[in-house]
């Protein structure tokens, strides 16, 4: 059935792997993936736990539609308490790994404790064992790790999810990378994995997945696939241009944070845009982009596969980087590019490769470099600290910083702390463009007001994937709203947050929601899963998940004071573009949002709300 009803519990301290039944009662309330794993987490850990201590737990989790023919049904999430934020962390990844875990017969893996020595987990259907990683894959990049594991176990079809050296070094924004260039990227989940001495999870599954009502399920998925194919965004824009389709659009509306959010438009945007990736380079006559690629089951195929110009200075003497690999997505292109004022497409691609190779979140990394460059330009830090001249616009500094952070060398060790800790260290906490310790993605909330509220209230710190009102405010999905006003944004943010919580709990990709609403997802869930999965129930599940995450964060020590934005966005007006003269008017939206949520003015869910949601 859509759930195997099997949890693998791995105690790294004791070195044990045990199967246990999935809590089907919780499934009814939290569906799967994000919701369900978060429920396990909040039940099993002390919210005050140090995220990098053995007492934190880390959960790899699939959704009921993971491993099915529902379009994009290949996702899994990593849920833990995040070291970057201290809040609940839930990072979602595509590729093939999640589906493989499901094929092996597992809904989730709960990791607890800490292994005395570096290990990796090998899963072959019901067989799960911890094996030594030392003198084998420990110290290796995620790319080498995957290759070595496939070779050792003589199976090219093993799927691997691993940390690179960044995770081993507990870089606070280390990612967990699967299938070479898909990542559970944000909030430092890779550092938690590193802190547990767990290098990799290698899975091969041949048991398959069944659904409750196969015939009806097929019908539902075929209908839903047609909706994706017919949409201009998921049927045309994303396959052709990837998320990078946004680079020029967001820049034009003056919402592209530039040079650590000093500016809202980047003069070099067109040089690093989706269109630029398609253009033939003068040097070798080839385009940066090689092809698009799908994740498991995905009929959109937004993934970028790029090749760096072999004559470019970044890779001239490094043939190991000449092959095709995961190219720039919008967030990465922006964080490494716009935010640092770097417009060298090949250099950005190189930095992105390294982020994949050694497992780092390019958003937080890029934004941390941006803060460092601002500190450098202000003279707070100098070449002595950084090891290289590091003004905005220096592609060279960016690439060196990427290598150093990935490998744990020099100034990279400081960058590895993330911008909040780094800026505090240098006495300028205001320069860290973060919410709850996590860096912003590629949308400036002065030009897209709703996103300010979405960021401020996001349960995992600044993030575009917790409530993407950009869809409505910029693209008109499902309805167009004015990005420059705050009217109705509280309700919009809440609706997006709750719906996204559902999507993140299904096993589907949130990008489907450019074309799908819950109305398209519900029939697929209903036919795949046993039990009742009406729209009303799903809406409630979404809201319940949101409130559960909120309560965990509150218990971890967060308060309404943390639902805010950096001073720069609230006081320094946008200098150019349609949003010129605007700051983010969070204060106008937040009280209404709390009210709509049924929270006290201090941001705490009221008794009635808790009761209504069954918390």
């Amino acid at each position, binding site marked *: 059935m859509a759930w195997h009803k099997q949890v693998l519990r791995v105690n790294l301290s004791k070195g044990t792997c045990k199967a246990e039944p999935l809590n089907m009662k919780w499934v009814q309330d939290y569906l799967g993936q994000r919701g369900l794993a978060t429920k396990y987490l909040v039940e099993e850990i002390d919210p005050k736990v140090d995220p990098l201590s053995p007492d934190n737990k880390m959960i790899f989790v699939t959704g009921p539609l993971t491993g099915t023919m529902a379009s994009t049904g290949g996702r899994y999430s990593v849920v833990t308490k995040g070291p970057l934020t201290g809040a609940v962390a839930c990072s979602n990844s595509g590729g093939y790994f999640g589906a493989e875990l499901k094929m092996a017969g597992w809904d989730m893996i709960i990791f607890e404790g800490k292994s005395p020595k570096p290990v990796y987990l090998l899963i072959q259907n019901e067989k799960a064992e911890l094996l030594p990683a030392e003198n084998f894959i420990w110290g290796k990049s995620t790319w080498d790790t995957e*290759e070595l594991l*496939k*070779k*050792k*176990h*003589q*199976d*090219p079809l093993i799927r691997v999810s691993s940390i690179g050296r960044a995770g081993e070094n507990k870089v606070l924004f280390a990612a967990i990378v699967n299938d070479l260039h898909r990542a559970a990227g944000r909030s430092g989940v890779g550092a938690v994995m590193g802190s547990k001495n767990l290098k990799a999870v290698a899975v091969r599954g041949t048991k398959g997945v069944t659904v409750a009502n196969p015939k009806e399920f097929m019908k539902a998925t075929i209908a839903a696939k047609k909706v994706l194919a017919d949409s201009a965004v998921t049927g045309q824009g994303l396959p052709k241009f990837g998320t990078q389709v946004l680079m020029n659009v967001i820049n034009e509306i003056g919402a592209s944070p530039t040079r650590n959010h000093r500016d809202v438009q980047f003069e070099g945007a067109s040089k690093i845009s989706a269109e630029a990736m398609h253009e033939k380079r003068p040097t070798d006559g080839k385009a940066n982009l090689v092809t698009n690629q799908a994740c498991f089951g995905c009929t959109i195929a937004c993934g970028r596969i790029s090749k760096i110009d072999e004559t470019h200075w970044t890779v001239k003497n490094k043939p190991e980087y000449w092959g095709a690999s995961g190219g720039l997505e919008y967030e990465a292109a922006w964080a490494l590019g716009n935010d640092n004022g770097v417009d060298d497409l090949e250099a950005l691609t190189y930095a992105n490769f390294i982020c994949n190779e050694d497992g780092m979140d390019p958003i937080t990394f890029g934004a941390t470099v941006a803060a460092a460059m601002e500190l450098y330009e202000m003279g707070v830090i100098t070449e002595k600290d950084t090891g290289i001249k590091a003004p905005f616009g220096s592609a060279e500094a960016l690439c060196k910083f990427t290598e150093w952070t990935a490998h744990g060398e020099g100034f990279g060790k400081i960058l590895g702390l993330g911008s909040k800790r780094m800026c505090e260290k240098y006495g300028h906490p205001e320069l860290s463009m973060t919410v709850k310790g996590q860096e912003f993605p590629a949308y400036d909330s002065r030009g897209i007001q709703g996103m300010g509220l979405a960021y401020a209230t996001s349960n995992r710190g600044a993030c575009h994937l917790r409530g993407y009102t950009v869809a409505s405010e910029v693209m008109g999905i499902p309805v167009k709203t004015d990005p420059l006003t705050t009217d109705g944004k509280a309700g919009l943010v809440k609706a997006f947050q709750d719906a996204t919580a559902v999507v993140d709990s299904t096993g589907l990709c949130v990008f489907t929601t450019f074309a799908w609403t819950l109305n398209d997802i519900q029939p697929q869930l209903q036919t795949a899963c046993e039990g009742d999965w009406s729209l009303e129930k799903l809406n409630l599940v979404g809201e319940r998940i949101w409130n559960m995450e909120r309560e965990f964060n509150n218990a971890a020590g967060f308060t309404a004071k943390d639902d805010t934005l950096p001073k720069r966005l609230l006081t320094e007006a946008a200098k150019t573009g349609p949003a010129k003269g605007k700051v983010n008017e969070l204060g106008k939206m937040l009280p209404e949002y709390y009210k709509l949520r049924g929270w006290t003015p201090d941001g705490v869910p009221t008794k009635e709300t808790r009761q209504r949601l069954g918390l």
Partner: protein
Amino acid sequence: MNYVIIGNGPAGVIAAETLRQSDPQDSIVLIGDELEPPYSRMAIPYLLMGDIQEAGTYLRKDANHFRNLNIELLVARADKVDPTNKKVFLNNGKTVNYDKLLIASGSRPVAPPITGMNLPGIYPCWTMEDSRHIMKLAKKGARVLQMGAGFIGCIILEALASRGVELIVVEMGNRMVPRMMTEGAGGLIKKWCEKKGVKVFTSTKVEAIEKSGNSANPLKVKLSNGESLTVGLVISATGVRPNTEFLKGSGIVTDVGIKVDETMQTNVPGVYAAGDVAQAQEFYTGAQMVNAIQPNAADQARIAALNMAGKSARSQGTMAINVLNTLGLISSSFGQWMGVAGGDHTELVDEDNFRYMHLEFKDDILVGATSLGLTQHVGVIRGLIQGKIRLGEWKDLLLKDPTRIMEAYLARTQGSNFKFAA
């Protein structure tokens, strides 16, 4: 045209059908000396396991198949062939005339030269008749000793084990399947068998078999290591030899088997041979060899029949390809698995999980392989070897990681005008 085929195993049957395809009128006589309808020896292990009934071993399932094709089945033994007068003499006193003759008489087991081989309770595992004897004695709990752990021996092993007998295997060579597997693979197969509760003696000979006096286990087997074992059944799987005796004096040249050219024709025009009985050019070395395996019988039979029917078809050379299931451990071997002069190789071993991969190259061409545990897309190994596909830079990659054989195959064959030729 009047075609006569001696031997109704896979080679004989496929040849008869191929001949029929080329002309609906010709007379085709298929002679076999076993009482059963044409059946497949290869299926005997599955009969022993109880997976199929005797009928499941039949080469053609439709009882009227041969009648419908107007192929005449004769149950008799050919005692003599007279190529000058184009006659075959049968043991029932009859003779049949032919215009063209195919000899597909297969091979038969050779008993090792030790005393006591004539005692009751000692059988080869070669014919349907043998299998009936074995099934009677190899009951649950019986002690069974198998002499020889070659290719066929290992296959039978699986069948015997599934019958719940207590198994002892004695092999002269230093490992299991010594003539088909590398040291590494053969050693691992032995380890696997022992893990599964089979007692395996390698580098050991059976020196004599005597009566034990014990009624449950009436046979006493003396081994070269000094041990003596009492058992209820001995299975002799120490090798086979082509059935060529009846050709003595016919002028048809035989060596180990019947010598044939690349059209499967013997030295006598109009007389062909195929299958276990034929000795043909080996694909890589060009040396003449008997290749007693099922796919070879099928290939050679088709080539022989096409030539007999006046079409032209040439063998590229015969190649040993084997796949084995030894108590659940699947292994395969191809071509020059033992390597060739001036070649190089790569080997990847995962002892704990019984995974193994060994590739042999000459320049950038794959010439042989041995594997354990590989079950998906194995056929491309044959494709690469027999297609003599130049691997180019993929060879270096395979030297590093031989498991990427399928990728190498696709990369070197897809998109080009590659065609696998017979």
